[in-house]
């Protein structure tokens, strides 16, 4: 019964996201020639399903465990004070703190090879759309979700009270990956948009635009990139298998062992 509910919820999510993003991708396409069922859509669907059916729970378990340790760093009195602030102030603080942290956390993912080996799975998508947003290694999820929640873990913000912002942040993260080009004028300096994030997925590993919700951090730290056109090609320069198991295993295994596995199992 429980698992059936998870499956139903996964299906409902897929349906909802299709309804939200497919019409947008058709009417305001960034790459008009890209089809809905483009190359490797099934691989991204596997990541989508895996995230909902397998990894979501595990990631949550790990982070809940992590939180048990982190929540005692700050005295309870301070946490109570933080949680009792006006909602608008909490929302602003959470957005600002998590944006700073995710900006630097994300930059480190591109800088250091150890983090990049997991993060490159997300960047291996050669076609960007709302479904490709879900291509993410579970350990990469733990890293990013851990970082973005660090202020919450430590300071105890009442996110339940600002759940609309939590939800907005989530769906916006999918939107910036969608195959949409909808210029928003000067607002693009304040709110992240697909046209910015698409450049982040350029073939060059350190192209820029590391921020998520707002590009302010990119502007502040000199990594803001916004040409008038779309990047010619998305993806990575390295070789990565184009199947689900291969993409999950590749970052986990040392190169030598991986090469042996590839030879024996033909995973790539």
């Amino acid at each position, binding site marked *: 019964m*429980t698992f059936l*509910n998870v499956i139903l*919820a*996964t299906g*409902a*999510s897929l349906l*909802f*996201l299709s309804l*939200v993003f497919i*019409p*947008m991708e058709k*009417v*305001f396409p960034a790459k008009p020639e890209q089809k809905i069922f483009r190359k490797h859509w099934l691989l991204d669907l596997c990541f*989508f399903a895996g*995230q*909902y059916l397998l990894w*979501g*729970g*595990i*990631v*949550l*378990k790990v*982070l*809940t465990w992590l*939180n*048990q340790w982190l*929540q005692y760093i700050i005295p*309870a009195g301070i946490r*109570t004070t933080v949680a009792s602030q006006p909602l608008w102030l909490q929302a602003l603080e959470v957005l600002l703190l*998590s944006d700073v942290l*995710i900006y630097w956390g*994300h930059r480190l993912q591109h800088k250091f090879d150890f983090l990049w080996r997991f993060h490159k799975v*997300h960047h291996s998508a050669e076609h960007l759309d709302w479904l490709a*947003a*879900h291509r*993410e290694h579970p350990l*990469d*999820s733990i*890293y*990013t*979700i851990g970082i*973005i*929640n660090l202020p*919450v873990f430590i300071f*105890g913000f009442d*996110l*339940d009270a600002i*759940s*609309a912002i*939590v*939800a*907005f*942040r*989530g*769906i*916006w*993260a*999918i939107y910036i*990956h969608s195959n949409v080009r909808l210029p928003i004028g000067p607002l693009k300096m304040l709110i992240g948009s697909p046209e910015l*994030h698409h450049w982040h997925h350029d073939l060059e590993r350190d192209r820029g635009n590391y921020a998520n919700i707002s590009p302010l951090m990119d502007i502040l730290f000199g990594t803001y990139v916004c040409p008038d056109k779309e990047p010619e090609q998305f993806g990575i320069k390295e070789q990565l298998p184009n199947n689900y198991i291969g993409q999950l295993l590749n970052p986990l295994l040392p190169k030598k062992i991986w090469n042996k596995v590839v030879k024996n199992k033909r995973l790539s």
Partner: protein
Amino acid sequence: MIKSKILQVIVLVSFVSLIVLFLFYRSGKLDSYLPGSNSPADASINANTLIETETDTLPPKKDTLTPEMLPSSKSMMVVRSKPSKTKDTSGIKKIPDSLKLKSPPLFSGSKSGFIVDPSTFKFDTPLFKIDTSYRPVKKKKKDKQ
């Protein structure tokens, strides 16, 4: 030309509407309209008593069992299995924050947010936790007998 402009407007309006609807849904504003929620319409006649006896001595479940999640830049869950704040707890003694077991809400990562709340995937708790609130109703009936 006009046709395509109209289409663009329709798509944009429906996009914004669905997003707004989703935000309302995730923030619990639509709970009373959703089937299976503890809205006055579908609550049993004993519901009030139940809620009181259930929460009088225990901290609210949402604090310990169903953390929210801040979405990542890659994914988020759209549909959550069951909103955790549907019960009308007005008039119920509140436990001081300092005594509550803390399991704070979480943001999803920075790539894609979960549309279904990850709390649904807790392996040690049933997905639709609030559905179990109907069990005490049966107990009540037995008591009466």
